[in-house]
């Protein structure tokens, strides 16, 4: 049984190692003790603790150093808004920098260390920066470090960079596993405080599918921090009971440890779930974190509010905390963050802290209420025995590694120094409206609660409770129920007009009564006053803000960017509104006149591992495997990625010492005997229909109507802007039936292009297109003995003679005694060659069969490298030539462009700039010395000309050692190229620091008459 309700119990302890631990808190299990270390020192804690609550329980107050001045810092908050208590969790590859101790759930064996300090947290040499702070004002670096110019990179910047950052990223690959999932619901509810739970219950009761997301490990939100009775029992037990009821409903999913971090378009929400971060030993294969893409028709934002500090000199010392956080530590975690407390508030809510601390046995030294008179404050002061300072402020604090006293400036102007080890500050509450502004909707300012409240106008977004500026629990319950009911009704569940469920009863409404006091600075505090921090983590002070305004950075965005206010890892959750109020005062404007900054996703920092999910390493992108992959692996093939495809690059054999040996052997095998290569990866598109021929005429530059059945033809496609797009052969297999091939790289884009042409440009054409790339295992069999090999496989009724099945023939045939297949007499290598296609499941068997029946003819498989060498030898353009910047003219195919028909790109291809003779045009190159390398990417300049761009006339696109020619050879593009065969040109490769010479030749190096392929 919890006992925190009992009036003024003494401060009990659970053991010598946790001096600040109370007997019980509603969120921890004191029955079990677990251990953790912080900066190598061991401590104990209880399940349910966060690292922050555990450190406080152990009396540890100094936990970090600030970014710029390395000021000692403690724990400010009890939630994700924490700017100070950032630590590194775990070690080695698991090291996790900048972790907010306030949300790090403790497990047995957790290790944590402080960061951004040297050599130790207690003594940090960089604290010297604080002494230099008069120089280190906002934006000081824009004004100096400019002379001499060379010093910036050499001296100034390295120093600045060394000082940069807070934690250290792990030095090894993240060993954890992350996954993603998709969720769908009618109503997404963000937050499980009173408003969220009421909304969930109302929506779920209507029958809507509900997902309730709670970032915390436990439901209840602020109900866990407050002594509030709902239906005559502690609020947090009401929350747990409500959650139990919701869990029992089949249409409700409750996700804890799940932060809705972004609201994207179309009702899509990003949710970040911590799956096993809180476990000492996750189950095998259990993901660390999970990204959810949740699609919701309606959303209820019940995210509560974030308390803001008051800005006063030296307001950053360890022990100065948000008042609401103090209540969270006392009531949920059973921790007293101090023994002698001062409460500093400008509203009634802060006074609750005095009452709760007092009930926990903490001595209340003073209540500093900036309001002139408050009967509420008087009552609390009386009850807690605290000295009340009405109309007062804290003018300064002292204590180096933790606050030891506060200087209180009374309403009467008199100063009074009071010793303390805890100052609980409440400057009021800012509704947590981040999600409501992700679509660019600006919030409006409410004078009543002195804060920005959301102005949702989108019909799928509802805001309820404190997030909407409703400051009482009963209001939150009523409003939550209404929002949940409305959201469900918008999805067609329940009646919009019928009243929502009766809200539970709250015994007593909280009062708020805020009279904003944004800061405790006065004009005469002048230069001697201590620094008053607005943004704790980035060390942005009141003075910085003033100076920025003085220098003209008076727009909120300018202020933010110039001072870095709100740009730290806490995203300015506790700083932004205070900064704005300060700027408004300096500008002499109201807060709404001054404006507000919009928040951008994520609402809380999200690990990159989660956003990437399982797609990393070898599985970054899927692999596409051709049908012979397994067989090729068994052959010891070396693979290469060709887009998503894995293709055999070459097939090394024993005795071959370099890949070049292998490739030479493969080329020679094809040129002299027979080889085979899996070319399944080329795109294959089946085109059928009465208008199929007309369709081809439109998408290719050349003519197709007269192609006979049983023949194939080379085709070139342009983009509509006239540049070359793709090429390949297309075969006519029937009267109205064609199969088109595309390059491997463009299979997808060509398919999309054909669909566009058909559906958008010529919808009246009667044609059907479908990919058959994966249907057929297509294997090129090439070389003078290829026909002999195929004769062993193709069923005997098919005539394979040159007369019966000549170059560019195509047919449906059968192989191996009736297995359906397709045979094409095509040649990329320039040899007598075929492409044989069998249904994909049989591709593996076909490769094995080819090896067997081809053995007497010296058959060998060849990979894409040998394929590439042979196509260069034949002058066939491929990817490097069809790079999207070349035209038909450049490729030497200008004459293919039909003048008798419309086709994609025809008009634009005729523009002078695409056809001029000075355009670099395809040529072949041979070095003057056969063994001289011609590097692809080298540029072509006239012999003897200076090595400058003015003389640049072209480049080498592809090159290879040709075992057939016995020389390096290359394809390239050269101005007026075709007219320059025989000319010697200089080949410049400045990256390799070489200039060599080459002869311009025809791009067809091997068998220019085409005798071999017609054999």
């Amino acid at each position, binding site marked *: 049984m919890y006992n925190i309700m009992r009036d003024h119990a003494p401060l009990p302890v659970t053991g010598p190692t946790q001096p600040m631990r109370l007997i019980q808190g509603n969120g921890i299990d004191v029955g079990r003790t677990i251990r953790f270390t912080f900066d190598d020192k061991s401590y104990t804690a209880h399940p349910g603790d966060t690292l922050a609550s555990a450190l406080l329980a152990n009396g540890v107050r100094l936990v970090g150093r600030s970014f710029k001045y390395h000021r000692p810092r403690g724990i400010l908050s009890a939630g994700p808004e924490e700017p100070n208590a950032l630590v590194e969790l775990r070690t080695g590859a698991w090291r996790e920098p900048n972790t907010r101790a306030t949300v790090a759930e403790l497990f047995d064996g957790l290790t944590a260390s402080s960061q951004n300090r040297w050599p130790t947290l207690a003594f940090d040499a960089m604290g010297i920066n604080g002494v230099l702070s008069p120089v280190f004002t906002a934006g000081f670096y824009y004004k100096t470090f400019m002379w001499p110019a060379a010093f910036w990179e050499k001296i100034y910047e390295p120093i600045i960079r060394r000082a940069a950052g807070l934690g250290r990223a792990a030095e090894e690959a993240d060993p954890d596993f992350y996954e993603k999932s*998709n969720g*769908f619901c009618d109503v997404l509810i963000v937050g499980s405080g009173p408003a969220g739970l009421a909304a969930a219950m109302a929506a779920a009761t209507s029958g809507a599918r509900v997902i309730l997301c709670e970032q915390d490990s436990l439901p209840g939100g602020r109900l866990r921090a407050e002594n509030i009775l709902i239906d005559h029992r502690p609020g947090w037990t009401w929350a747990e009971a409500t959650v139990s009821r919701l869990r029992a409903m*089949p249409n409700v999913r409750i996700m*804890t440890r799940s932060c809705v971090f972004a609201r994207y378009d179309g009702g899509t929400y990003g949710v970040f779930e911590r799956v096993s971060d809180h476990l000492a030993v996750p189950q095998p294969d259990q993901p660390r974190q999970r990204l959810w893409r949740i699609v919701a028709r309606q959303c209820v934002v019940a995210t509560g509010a974030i308390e803001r500090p008051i800005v006063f000199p030296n307001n950053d010392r360890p022990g100065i905390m948000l008042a609401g956080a103090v209540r969270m530590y006392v009531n949920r975690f059973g921790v007293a963050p101090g023994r002698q407390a001062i409460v500093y508030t400008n509203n009634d809510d802060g006074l609750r802290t005095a009452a709760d601390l007092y009930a926990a046995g903490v001595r209340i030294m003073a209540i500093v209420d900036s309001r002139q008179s408050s009967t509420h404050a008087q009552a609390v002061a009386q009850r807690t025995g605290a000295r009340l300072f009405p109309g007062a402020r804290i003018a300064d604090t002292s204590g180096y590694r933790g606050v030891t006293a506060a200087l209180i400036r009374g309403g009467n102007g008199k100063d009074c120094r009071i010793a303390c080890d805890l100052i609980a500050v409440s400057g009021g509450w800012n509704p947590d409206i981040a999600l409501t502004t992700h679509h660019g909707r600006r919030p409006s300012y409410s004078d009543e609660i002195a804060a920005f409240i959301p102005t949702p106008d989108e019909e799928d977004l509802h805001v309820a409770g404190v997030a909407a500026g409703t400051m009482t629990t009963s209001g939150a319950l009523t409003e939550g129920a209404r929002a949940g009911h409305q959201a469900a009704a918008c999805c067609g569940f329940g009646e919009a007009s019928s009243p929502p469920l009766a809200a539970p009863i709250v015994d007593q409404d909280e009062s708020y009564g805020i009279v904003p006091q944004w800061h405790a600075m006065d004009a005469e505090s002048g230069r001697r006053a201590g620094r008053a921090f607005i943004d704790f983590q980035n060390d942005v002070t009141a003075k910085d803000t003033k100076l920025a305004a003085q220098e003209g950075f008076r727009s909120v965005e300018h202020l933010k960017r110039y001072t870095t206010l709100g740009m730290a890892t806490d995203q300015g959750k506790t700083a932004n509104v205070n900064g704005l109020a300060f700027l408004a005062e300096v500008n002499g404007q109201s807060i709404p006149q001054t404006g507000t900054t919009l928040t951008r996703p994520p609402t809380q920092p999200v690990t990159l591992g989660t956003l990437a999910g399982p797609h990393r390493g070898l599985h970054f992108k899927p692999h596409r495997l051709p049908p012979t992959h397994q067989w090729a692996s068994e052959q010891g093939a070396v693979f290469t990625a060709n887009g998503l495809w894995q293709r055999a690059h070459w097939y090394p054999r024993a005795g071959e010492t370099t890949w070049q040996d292998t490739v030479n052997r493969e080329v020679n095998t094809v040129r002299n005997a027979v080889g085979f290569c899996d070319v399944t990866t080329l795109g294959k598109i089946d085109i059928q229909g009465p208008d199929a021929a007309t369709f081809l005429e439109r998408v290719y530059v050349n003519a197709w109507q007269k192609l006979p059945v049983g023949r194939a033809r080379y085709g070139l496609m342009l983009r509509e802007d006239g540049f070359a797009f793709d090429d390949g052969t297309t075969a006519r297999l029937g009267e109205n039936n064609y199969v088109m091939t595309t390059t491997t790289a463009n299979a997808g884009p060509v398919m999309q292009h054909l669909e566009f042409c058909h559906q958008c440009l010529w919808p009246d054409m009667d044609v059907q297109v479908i990919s*058959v790339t*994966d*249907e057929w295992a297509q294997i090129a069999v090439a070389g003078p003995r290829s026909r002999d090999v195929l004769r062993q496989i193709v069923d005997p009724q098919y005539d394979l003679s040159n007369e019966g099945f000549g170059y560019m023939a195509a047919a449906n045939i059968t192989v191996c005694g009736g297995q359906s297949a397709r045979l094409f007499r095509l040649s990329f290598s320039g040899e007598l060659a075929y492409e044989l296609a069998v249904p994909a499941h049989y591709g*593996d068997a076909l490769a094995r069969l080819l090896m067997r029946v081809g053995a007497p003819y010296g058959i060998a498989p060849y990979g894409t490298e040998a394929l590439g060498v042979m196509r260069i030898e034949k002058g066939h353009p491929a990817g490097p030539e069809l790079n999207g910047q070349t035209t038909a003219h450049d490729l030497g195919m200008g004459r293919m462009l039909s003048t008798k028909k419309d086709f994609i790109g025809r008009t634009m291809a005729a523009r002078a700039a695409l056809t001029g003779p000075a355009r670099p045009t395809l040529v072949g190159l041979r070095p003057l010395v056969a063994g001289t390398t011609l590097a692809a990417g080298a540029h072509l300049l006239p012999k003897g000309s200076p090595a400058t761009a003015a003389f640049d006339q072209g480049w080498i696109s592809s090159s290879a050692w040709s075992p057939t020619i016995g020389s390096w050879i290359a394809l390239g593009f050269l101005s007026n190229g075709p007219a320059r065969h025989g000319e010697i040109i200089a080949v410049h490769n400045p990256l390799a620091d070489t200039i060599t010479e080459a002869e311009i030749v025809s791009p067809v190096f091997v068998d220019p008459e085409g005798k071999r392929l017609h054999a």
Partner: protein
Amino acid sequence: MPDPLLPQPAVQPPSITVNGLTLALAPTRETVSIGPFAKCLPDLDAALASTFGVTLPADFSTASGQDGLQLTKAAHHQWFAHAPAGAGLMARLAPLCAGLAALTNQTDSRVTLCLRGTGADAVAAKLVPVDLAPHHFGPGHTALTLAGHIPVILSRPDGTSGLDFTVFRSFARSLHHDIHVAMKGGIPHSERV
């Protein structure tokens, strides 16, 4: 004459079991894509109805006819006809659809991975961005979508607790890997199954 060619499965082993879920390669079935020519749909439906007692479904659901024929939509204006191996589907459809539709054999272009067991939906939800709730995606429904980065035809067969992923053959091993990983990751605690 060499021996007949034997088919090679796209993934191995044929079945794995993790956390009570199984992932298995479905037996090969015959698949023919049907792309109706302009204005031919009524005649095509009539022809299919007369022979198989079924017409091309207008939405993404599976229509079952005689002789084990199943018709599913495979694109905005194309359908897949499936039949058990050995049915001679192309031979039966070709005369029926002559002049009415483009037919292409797709038997080898796709393979189907079957995920079975309690929690199959939760595992599938890690991969496919479509709502799998029964009232959205009930038995017989199909969806053309992405499983992670891989295009799939997702379907919920009648009478089993599970989902089928029909995928291009070349992607089968990667999809198998991805589903396997999702299975190992377990069922999110918030999922109702």
